[in-house]
Structures are given as C-alpha cells and as structure tokens.
C-alpha cells in the first residue's frame, strides 16, 4: 500500500533532519516502541508492543536509515514481525524549509502480512495514517 503525506515541524531543516535520526527521539516517537538498540551504522533493533482496540501483539524488528542526503532527504525503513503477522514500512522523507520551519514530506510503501493482513484490510490505511500522525506529533513535541 502506498502512503504519502506531509507534516510541519517548527524547526529549521538541519535540526528537523537531525531530530528524525536521533535514536532517542525515534524510540519515544515510534508508536508502541519498547526498546531501540543500535546494532550497526544507522541500524537498530526494535521491540514494539502494538495495542489498538482489542488487538495487541509484540513485534520484533529493525529500523534502518539509508540514502542520507542531509539536510534534504533520507530513507527510513521500519520492519517488525510477531505472531499475528508482520509489517514493513519504507518511506523517503524530504525536508523543505517552510514558514520558519520545515515541511517533512514522506512517500513510501507499507506492507502487511499474516493474519493482520487478511482480516484487517479495511483498517490498514487508517491505522497507518494514525501511527504516522502519532509519530510526528511526538517528534514535534
């Protein structure tokens, strides 16, 4: 599934770019993130506990940052798998100065597999949007 959107951060592009690569910020902002441990250059191991309505599940996964072009763009990849299935999100984040801040636009792809893909079809779009919004809200905070 394709995803795209944008979010305004009240920071100059350089800072916005930095903030979105800060593992501490990522750990706090990623919905459900319980731990984020560096395992390599721009690569982290992540444990997540997702809870949405009655759905809940633990995911084990990775976060990876690639194609860095500071302060213009980088690629963020998040993947996780658990008993209920797996998910993989990949997005190119672009940073454009706007009104004394930065517009962060993203464009990418979300893949979901396993039971959640088969029964959650009608909710994947909305849930992805909600997670992304929560993420940026935290990043901005």
């Amino acid at each position, binding site marked *: 599934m394709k995803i795209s959107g944008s979010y305004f951060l009240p920071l100059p592009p350089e800072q916005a770019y930095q903030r979105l690569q800060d593992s501490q910020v990522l750990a706090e902002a990623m919905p459900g993130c319980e731990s984020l441990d560096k395992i390599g250059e721009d690569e982290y191991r992540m444990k997540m506990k997702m809870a*949405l309505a009655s759905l*809940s599940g633990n995911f084990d996964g990775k976060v990876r940052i690639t194609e860095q072009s500071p302060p213009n763009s980088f690629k963020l990849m998040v993947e996780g798998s658990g008993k209920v299935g797996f998910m993989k999100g990949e997005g190119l984040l672009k940073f454009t100065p706007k009104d004394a801040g930065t517009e962060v636009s993203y464009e990418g792809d979300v893949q979901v597999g396993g*039971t959640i893909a088969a029964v959650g079809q009608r909710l994947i779009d909305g849930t992805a949007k909600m997670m992304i919004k929560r993420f940026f809200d935290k990043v901005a905070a």
Partner: protein
Amino acid sequence: MIPQQFEYSAPKTLDEALGLLAEGARPLAGGMSLIPMMKLRLSNPEHLVDLGRIKDLSYIREQGTVIHIGATTTHHDVESSPLLRGKCPLLAETASHIGDVQVRNMGTIGGSVAHADPAADYPAALQALEAKIVLKGAKSERTVSAADFFVDTFTTALESGEIVREVIVPVDGSGTGTSYQKVLQPASGFAIVGIAVRVRKQGDKVAMARIGVTGLSNRAFRATAAEKALEGRSGSPAEIQAVAALVGQGVDANSDLHASADYRLHLASVYAAKALAVALGRIA
C-alpha cells in the same frame, strides 16, 4: 480459530467488575468484535470480565428531556424499544442497520461505543444526537460528550480501568426529523459511509441541523460546516445538494479494497443528501 487460555469472571455487580478492571482485566460486553479477534489470536487478554451478568446495566429509561441507555443494552433492544422509536427514532433506526440479526441480538451499545470502530454505525448517530457518554471507573464517574469521546481509530476518551456505563440521548419531540443512511460494505456489514441527520425547523427555516458521519475517516465526526450551511435555509433540493457536498470537505478519507477515498467522499455527499431529504421530510 482457537483462542489462548484466559481467565473469565462474570461478576454480578458493577463495583466488582470495576475492581477487576482496575487490576488489568479487560471488559467483555457482547463480544461481537472481541471474540473473533481472540479466535484469530489477534487479541489475547489474560483476564476477561463479562459485563453481561451485571444487574441493572441493561435499560432504556426516560428521565425528563433525556433517555438513559445502559451499556449492555443490545442493539436489538435499542432497535425495538417503543420508547426510543417514539422519542429518539434516530438511534433506533441506526441500531437496525448494525451487522445482522445475530450481531444485533448479542452486540451492545456500550461495547460498540467503547470499541470505536471507525466504521461502526452508532457513533454517527451519537454525534448527531450530541449524546453524552457516562464513563465509570473504580473510583470515578464522568460524563463526556460524543464529540470529545471519539478521538481516533479505535481510540476514545476512556482511560484504562474505565468502562462505558451508559449513553444519554435527548428526547426528540415533534418538530424534529431524523434519518440514518448507510452504504453497506457487503462482506462485513460495516459502513463504507453512514450519515445520521437530525434537523428541526422553525417556521419554514431549518433552525437546527446535526450531521454525524461514520466510515469516511479515522473516526465518527460532526460535519459542522454542512450543518451551519443548512441552518437558516428552507432545505430546498438545491440547498440539500449544496449542503451535502460540504460533508466531506477537508476530510482525509479512508481508502480500502471496497472504496477508494474519492468514492467514499462521493458517497458521503450522495448519502448525506438522501439523509437530509428524508429527515426534513420526516419533520411532523
């Protein structure tokens, strides 16, 4: 289709239930959403508290200008209640659109509201009715408006340990016309779009318009721009069309296999027009 092991309690009193919930148990009402998720092991609660045996949690009572509906009141009870059909017909009509007969016999208003599925039927009506939702925890009770209750996809104002205790809807006297119109997703029965309309006229002008929308986006909401545009007008067919077109304005619409965002927005406008026309026509 086999759930994990879980503990099950069926207390007789609300206090007992709230005590267990405060310890981390999860509430079970009609189970129409929770149990399928448990069978698929997408939901694995360790302890379920069945609210169905609690005395005096299933009721429909008129009190002055409002009607109180207990949390475990089934959709069927709402749909078939003479009191609601007479004095809050929008809620009864909406209940009749939920799922199928089996779901309506088991599912409850409290469960549906607390679950806050973005495509559930009740939330549209509750928004249009400006309903109040009473939330009860072990040591607290508070009342929030429907507008504040439905926060996001499956996300409500409920705090952990709290349950929906009752829903309070206004008595709609004569002079009010209502309608719920729904585009059904044929596989699941959920709303692709559901529009609840409640209108009142003074003379030949619309004095009050409330439009609740479900299925279109991340949560049920009130289409306030459309409401404002109708108030003060006569509700002519041309006005209805113009007002209906505002319902989806600025909304980040959902998209899935059954309906793209564009189609959903289009349906919202078509069904809003339908609901407005029916509701205006029903003003006695």
